[in-house]
């Protein structure tokens, strides 16, 4: 590592450690004012982390201490619950939401078209993919599709703020990389190294050659990619096109976002899932090392 990279890491680490003061600290004291209807409703969509209850910060200025966590509460109204899995795509999310609410999936797809109403950050460029944050959401049965999706976007923004994403020069690229990391990593522990491979390949102008992007282009979820698939004419086909795909290919969780922001230091340019059963992934720097891993994967697979 050289002094420049060390400096980058040091600054990123310092920025990460600092929890910013609540926004209210920077505002002059004024009588409380109601926020827009959708955002207020989004704050009412209570988010639970997968596996446990997590507090949701409301941004409502009515609260005396806006940074104080508001405990997740089901409320008096009847609620639906939907879980956005890490790495899930919005197409599948709309199906899940449709099942949970009885609304047709199209009404969610339609609601997703209005990025402004969802509160998407500008760098989402109006697309929901990548910005529906994973987690378990509970919302009143009266919630509209827009309010439900806005709740997921609000959770993304909170996580992104916590990670200092918006102060980066290319936050959209970070989310795209995180979506690739999420789709390609068998376990969370692999994520920082997978992120490093993506960064290193981009820095060297290599094609990313990631199957997850081809599958996304094909609208498929699982399974291998054939030689025929690799000819797919789509900007998502990273075997054909250099650089990142035009948008996220999944909705990444916090670990993947963190990995995209802080890849593990290392020289690797390749990775291979050598044991799909156990989810073992191995990393290689040279073409020869890569060929060896690929051969091993073929034998075991």
């Amino acid at each position, binding site marked *: *590592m050289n*002094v420049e990279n*060390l400096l*980058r890491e040091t600054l990123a680490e*310092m920025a990460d450690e600092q929890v910013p*003061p609540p*926004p209210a*600290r920077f505002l002059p004291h004024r009588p409380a004012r109601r926020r827009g209807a959708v955002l207020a409703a989004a704050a009412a969509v209570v988010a639970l982390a997968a596996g446990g209850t997590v507090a949701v910060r409301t941004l409502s200025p009515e609260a005396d201490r806006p940074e104080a966590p508001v405990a997740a509460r089901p409320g008096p109204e009847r609620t639906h619950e939907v879980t956005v899995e890490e790495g899930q795509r919005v197409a599948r999310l709309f199906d899940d939401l449709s099942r949970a609410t009885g609304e047709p999936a199209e009404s969610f797809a339609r609601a997703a078209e209005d990025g402004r109403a969802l509160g998407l950050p500008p760098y989402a460029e109006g697309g929901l993919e990548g910005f529906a944050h994973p987690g378990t959401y509970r919302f009143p049965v009266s919630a509209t599709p827009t309010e439900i999706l806005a709740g997921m976007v609000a959770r993304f923004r909170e996580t992104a703020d916590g990670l200092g994403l918006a*102060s980066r020069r290319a936050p959209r690229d970070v989310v795209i990389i995180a979506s690739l990391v999420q789709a390609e990593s068998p376990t969370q522990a692999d994520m920082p190294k997978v992120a490093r491979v993506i960064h290193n390949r981009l820095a060297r102008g290599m094609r990313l050659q990631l199957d997850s992007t081809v599958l996304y282009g094909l609208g498929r979820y699982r399974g291998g990619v054939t030689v025929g698939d690799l000819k797919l004419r789509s900007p998502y086909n990273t075997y054909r096109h250099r650089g990142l795909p035009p948008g996220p290919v999944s909705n990444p969780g916090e670990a993947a976002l963190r990995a995209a922001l802080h890849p593990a230091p290392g020289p690797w340019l390749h990775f291979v899932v050598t044991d799909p059963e156990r989810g073992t992934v191995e990393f290689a720097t040279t073409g020869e090392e890569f060929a060896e891993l690929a051969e091993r994967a073929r034998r075991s697979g």
Partner: protein
Amino acid sequence: MDPGFEAALRQFVVDRSGALFRTAYLLTGDRHAAEDLVQSALAKTAARWRALRDPEAIEGYVRRTMYHEQVSRWRRRSRVVEVSTDERIDRAGDGHAEAADLRLTMRAALSRLTPRQRTMLVLRYFEDRSETEIAHLLGVRVGSVRSQIYRSLERLKKSAPELSAVREFR
């Protein structure tokens, strides 16, 4: 005060104060100084709100104000930044200890740079801006940015001799 303006200011602060604070912290190395810096840049920006209008221009103005204030601030007071050494070394696990050590050395070395040098490094290596952009933002010549950054990096290397012992990847 115009209610539209007030709502827009509030929204901007809710959306952006976190990111602004982190940058301010890197510039100052001190939470209180960082809060002051954000607060004062916001106040100056609020006064020019109407002329700026679009959110991107507003953020650009706040940031530029922060950089300028920080660079001129050092004439008035010098700041000592404490690095809480023990705690951070403890946290780093076995294999990572060496790297964590280096980052600590780096922090201490950063605190010995002038605010101008430090600001340029934050712009270059945290915000990832080009030398041309930095020159534009600070109102100095590109050549001056280049030489100052070069000199700062040399100083960092000198204050952390372990750095030269670090393996180069590739």
